[in-house]
């Protein structure tokens, strides 16, 4: 999905013909809008790759760039400039949406760095869940127990019965998993810092840890979702 182009290749501005590097929305010489630059989402904001991002500064920069590049500013411009404004703004929006949200940002940067991440399309997780090899080992016993309870709950609902003990037990399980999610997020933040400040070896280790944490997180999320559905909102 992502194309990484060597950002050192100079490209001539369509308007003033002066060469510039490929990662800018506007020509540094004549300020005219440019076709969507290559490079990654961090470069759109002039940032170095990092897991920790200053969100207020990111928002400020997003607004500043939006004011300049948005199609509303080019409603009466030529066809080419309108087309680039549309493409540039789509890139800006996609970049902002990805970077402002911690999990999206983490997955994105891990992929940029070449890590293999589990499938993120929501619809595809459910089937995998029953596959025991994907259950984190420390949760094996608990997940087995939980699946039994979820099944019982389904049966009880079908019969129109209510089982307060079962209900309480599931609610407790949900609280426990929620707590584990908080722990995962804390660990992730710790790894962000390790990566951002570490050398190549530290980064490599942090990446592996983060991929595992994301897997665990996805797994826990699905458990919470199943329990919540079973408790019937």
């Amino acid at each position: 999905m992502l194309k990484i182009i060597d950002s050192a290749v100079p490209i001539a501005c369509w308007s003033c013909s002066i060469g510039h590097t490929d990662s800018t929305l506007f020509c540094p010489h004549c300020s005219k809008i440019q076709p969507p630059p290559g490079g990654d989402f961090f470069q759109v904001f002039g940032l170095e790759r990092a897991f920790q991002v200053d969100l207020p500064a990111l928002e400020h920069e997003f607004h500043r760039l939006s004011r300049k590049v948005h199609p509303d500013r080019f409603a009466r411009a030529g066809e080419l400039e309108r087309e680039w404004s549309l493409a540039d703004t789509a890139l800006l929006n996609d970049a902002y949406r990805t970077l402002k949200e911690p999990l999206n940002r983490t997955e994105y940067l891990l992929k940029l760095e070449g890590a293999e991440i589990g499938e993120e399309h929501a619809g595809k997780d459910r089937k995998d869940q029953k596959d025991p090899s994907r259950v984190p080992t420390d949760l094996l016993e608990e997940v087995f127990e939980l699946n039994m309870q979820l099944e019982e709950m389904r049966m009880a609902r079908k019969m129109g019965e209510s089982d307060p003990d079962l209900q309480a037990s599931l609610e407790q399980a949900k609280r426990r998993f929620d707590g584990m999610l908080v722990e995962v997020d804390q660990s992730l933040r710790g790894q962000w810092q390790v990566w951002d400040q570490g050398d190549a070896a530290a980064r490599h280790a942090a990446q592996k840890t983060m991929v595992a944490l994301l897997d665990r997180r996805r797994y826990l999320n699905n458990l919470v979702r199943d329990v919540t559905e079973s408790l019937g909102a």
Partner: protein
Amino acid sequence: MAESTLNGRVVGIDLGTTNSLVAYMQGDAPVVIPGVDGLNLVPSVVALDPIPAEGGRPSVTVGNTARKALIETPERVIYSVKRLMGRGLEEIHDELKLFPFRLADDVEAGEVPRIRLGEMKFTPPEISAYILRQLKRNAERFFGAPVTQAVITVPAYFNDAQRQATKDAGRMAGLDVLRLVNEPTAAALAYGLDRAKVGTIAVYDLGGGTFDISILKLRDGIFEVQSTNGDTHLGGDDIDNLLLTIALDEIHAEHGVDLRQHPAAVQALRKAAIDAKIALSSEQVARFDIELPNGDRYQREIPRDVFELLIEPVLERTAGPCKQALADAGITPEQIDEVVLVGGSTRIPAVRQLVDELFHLAARGKRPHIELNPDEVVALGAAVQADILAGASKSTEEMLLLDVTPLSLGIEALGGTVARIIQRNSTIPASATEHFTTGVEGQTNVAIHVLQGERELAKDCRSLARFDLRGIPPMSAGLPRIEVKFLIDADGILQVTAREQRSGQQANIEVKPTYGLTDEQVEGMILDSFDHAEEDFAARLLIEARNEAETILTAVDRAPGNPAWKHLTGEEQAAIAAARDRLAAVNLGEDLSAIRDATLALDHATRRFAELMMDAAVTTAIRGKTMDAAGEQMGHEVTAPHPMAAAEFK
């Protein structure tokens, strides 16, 4: 032409289910442009006149004149056509039950439905185009110059097909639609002009046929939509239908008359239902009193509490979308700083009560914003956006609207599952890139099924569009690598482009949407091109000015018969007579500005007379009510007829 287009005004248009309006930015404030009748609201009603005696095409009227024809010739009139915009045959069955739309017999599945109007057939975008053309003409008459560029508002929850249909209608009406703006966002723009610089606002928009809720963050002139939700088939029409159904059933049961067989009577009853609904916003009881075809009278009182019980299920349907929008924005009701009410239906006290509960307003010492007329605020906001797009205006140069797509976009994958590619509430423009390949040796076409919705299986989502990728170079199955780019543009409309990467020729693949009207069809429906009535602009202005002069002359000739005439002094009467003679004289000539000046002069001379008549009309209207109730009603809506609408020329 190019020069005048560049410098011409951009107007803002609210193309509503019930009423439509056109507005523009006058200095630093948006104002609505009135029609020839002096009224701001143009009813979204289109009527086909009788076939002229000398033959040829019947002409089309729009607005209040068309609404009058609704009682006389209901089979030649259509309203609420917005409900049909961008919808397929299979989607409009419910609408056909509730609304007197007459579908053409020869419409086939997959085609854009056509509606019968008298002896002719029109697609919904064509009907909307007539409304837009009327608004365009109103604006041209007001400016005395051509208007070719516009911003048009659509419900935030409109899907791709509905948006495209609206844009098509603009093109048919001869308008270059610079932007489609979501209605609640437009309302926020109208309010945001002179409001706090930072804050989170919710816009609750319950109109004639659609409901939208949008949550926006305001910061230094940037209006960033956080989330939006809604229901494109929920509004005041549904309340009218409830009242109408009850009345029809009661009349059938009590008087043995099935009015459903009498379209004209149903229209009269619908009007009575609407009047009752409006009255109940200010009074405790409303009355039906209708004469039936068999001479009986149907009389019924509807107390407000009964009405509120009746409409509760309709109003309750707005609560779910509000809660979802809050959840999607990741905030609680307490974090909403301000709530803006939009749409005529928000005048209903029960609606305001519900909004108060949903956003905990009274509990926090807050009240919703109703300062701007809820019927006009969307058009005013459209004018603000038009000004932003036109550029070079001090009052809006710091403003920028960042809107979102209301629905997640997905594509059907193997096994009927949905791969979501753009999440709902993503800021637009937004894009996603996916790769496809072929399943059969030498396959040159790939069909992509685009869906909207949040469910996991394609059959549970709403089908948005099917795109055919054609012209793929023939290769072994699975070898082509087709890169498809999905881009939702600033109008919320999906653009799809595709390229085959493996063949090395980077051939551009043809992408053809399999819904809506084709470019050629839209081209053929451009109104003035098949009206054969294309006059040049100056000639049209002259005709309109003459018609207007005729209207005021006729009214003045009848004036001495009015009781108010006696209250004028002799000098006033003489001044009117002189102005009348002057207008009658110049109206025979070709001098547009002379006719306009004389019309203006006569209008001026008759102003006091008009006021006297209006006073008399108001007195009649409120006779029999307590003064308190009358005062309240006046505050909401001054509906006394102005017999001689002020002619507003620049």
